[in-house]
């Protein structure tokens, strides 16, 4: 058993399970929260995350398959994606291709009314194609502002980790291949004009 990540609401571990290498994502207890609030939140989030992944799987989107949900332990057992993170992959020479594929994947999520919530470069895995992982903050939404907020999170993580490549144009041009992208790009412009984002420029 190998702990990969201790997040703010879950522990992510790699384990052997029925002869496979799988991911256990366990929402462990937060002692600072009132017990009934804790119970309600964990149940809601467990349910929402599994449902969203199910929805994407059924449409053939590249996301980790769910093998099981262990409600008594607040745990989702899912496919282990054997690859490197997009963050690492973008440091190589094929970054343009990866950016294009990621943009297409994100627009596919959006076209299925799923907003990822935290699409940083560490939440995409590169194998022979690109997978989106960690749907802990995802929501079902067809609001262009929510979608634009996804774009902003991605572009910001590009900017902070990969300032050496000018990925913004490449990413947005491939995102724009989606027929309904124009209003999202428009919403992104409005979002980025807000004080709290445009003052980040140094």
């Amino acid at each position: 058993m190998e702990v990969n990540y201790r997040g703010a609401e879950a522990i992510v571990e790699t384990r052997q399970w029925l002869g496979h290498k799988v991911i256990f994502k366990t929402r462990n207890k937060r002692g600072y929260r009132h017990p009934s609030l804790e119970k309600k939140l964990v149940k809601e989030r467990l349910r929402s995350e599994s449902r969203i992944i199910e929805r994407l799987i059924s449409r053939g989107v590249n996301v980790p398959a769910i093998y099981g949900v262990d409600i008594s332990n607040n745990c989702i057992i899912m496919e282990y994606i054997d690859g490197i993170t997009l963050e690492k992959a973008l440091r190589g020479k094929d970054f343009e291709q990866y950016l294009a594929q990621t943009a297409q994947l994100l627009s596919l999520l959006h076209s299925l009314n799923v907003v990822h919530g935290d699409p940083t470069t560490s939440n995409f895995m590169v194998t022979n194609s690109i997978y989106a992982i960690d749907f802990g903050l995802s929501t079902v939404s067809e609001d262009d502002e929510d979608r634009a907020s996804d774009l902003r999170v991605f572009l910001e993580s590009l900017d902070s980790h990969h300032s050496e490549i000018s990925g913004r144009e490449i990413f947005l041009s491939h995102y724009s291949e989606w027929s309904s992208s124009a209003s999202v790009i428009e919403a992104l412009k409005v979002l980025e004009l807000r004080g709290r984002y445009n003052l980040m420029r140094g």
Partner: protein
Amino acid sequence: MRKTLSKIAIGIESTAHTAGVGLITSEGKILSNQRALYVPKEGGIHPREAANHHSEKLPDLFKSALEEAGLTPADISLVSYARGPGLGPCLRTGATAARAFAYSHDIPLLGVNHCVAHLEIGLLEGAIDPVLLYLSGANTQVIAYAAGRYRVFGETIDIGIGNGLDKFAREAGMGFPGGPKLEKIAKGDELLDLPYSVKGMDLAFSGLMTAAKQKLDSGHSLSTVAYSIQETAFAMSCEVSERALAHTAKKELVLGGGVACNMRLREMANIMAEERGVKCFVPERSLCVDNGVMIAWLGLQMMKADYNITEKDNVVDQKYRTDMVEVTWR
């Protein structure tokens, strides 16, 4: 060679309710922390009346700070004031007082960022590279240092947590400041169902406070509602700071701002830090609330790194965001 000598800075705080004058040495020894609080007769803060209050109090605060420390203006090597963010009239009053003192005694003058000062004073407690959970009236932010700036990882997308508490308390018939009054009466273990709004590392409080008022109107006791507000709002705050800790892989948490005086919040933050294996630093109350000492301390940190004072440091800025400050002193 002069750099190795101890220096003393005077700091002037006047961003909102508090007029404060503080004195601190470059070794971090606090010589005086004088404060006067504007309490509105009714309703919320009135910027002009608060400014009038500050202009009335500041001269005495200067005097008593110097007296308490046993110093004269000649002993002071820097005048530091809060340039922003804050209410325009209040900021201008503090800036005017700072300028008058600096120019008449020929001391360098430097305007600093109020939010960054809250963070830097937390470092006096021994933290080195923390995540700051900054909860005050108008400001609710999760801040940490990354690549030359204090970046805001999460913040409120509507109202500040303290203003929310104050507003609820006011509507429930309690006076200002509402937060401490709610803390006193918050009791019980029955948790009412209130909106828990965490969006990534961002927070929202206005829906929570509206729902709380409705619970009160529908007959729930004030102590139960106050208890439920605290449990919900503070759990949200702890969750976003834990997200920032996970995201940045930092090992220290510092609390700051007036709401950080709340004992339940402190307890929850301590539990979170312990469960996560990070260290939690809580400055004493008089340094959590708005004060002149932290302003003076930040000024000293900036000058220690040979900060180049320009004209813009002499102008107040109501919307002076945390992440606008280029951190040259770390």
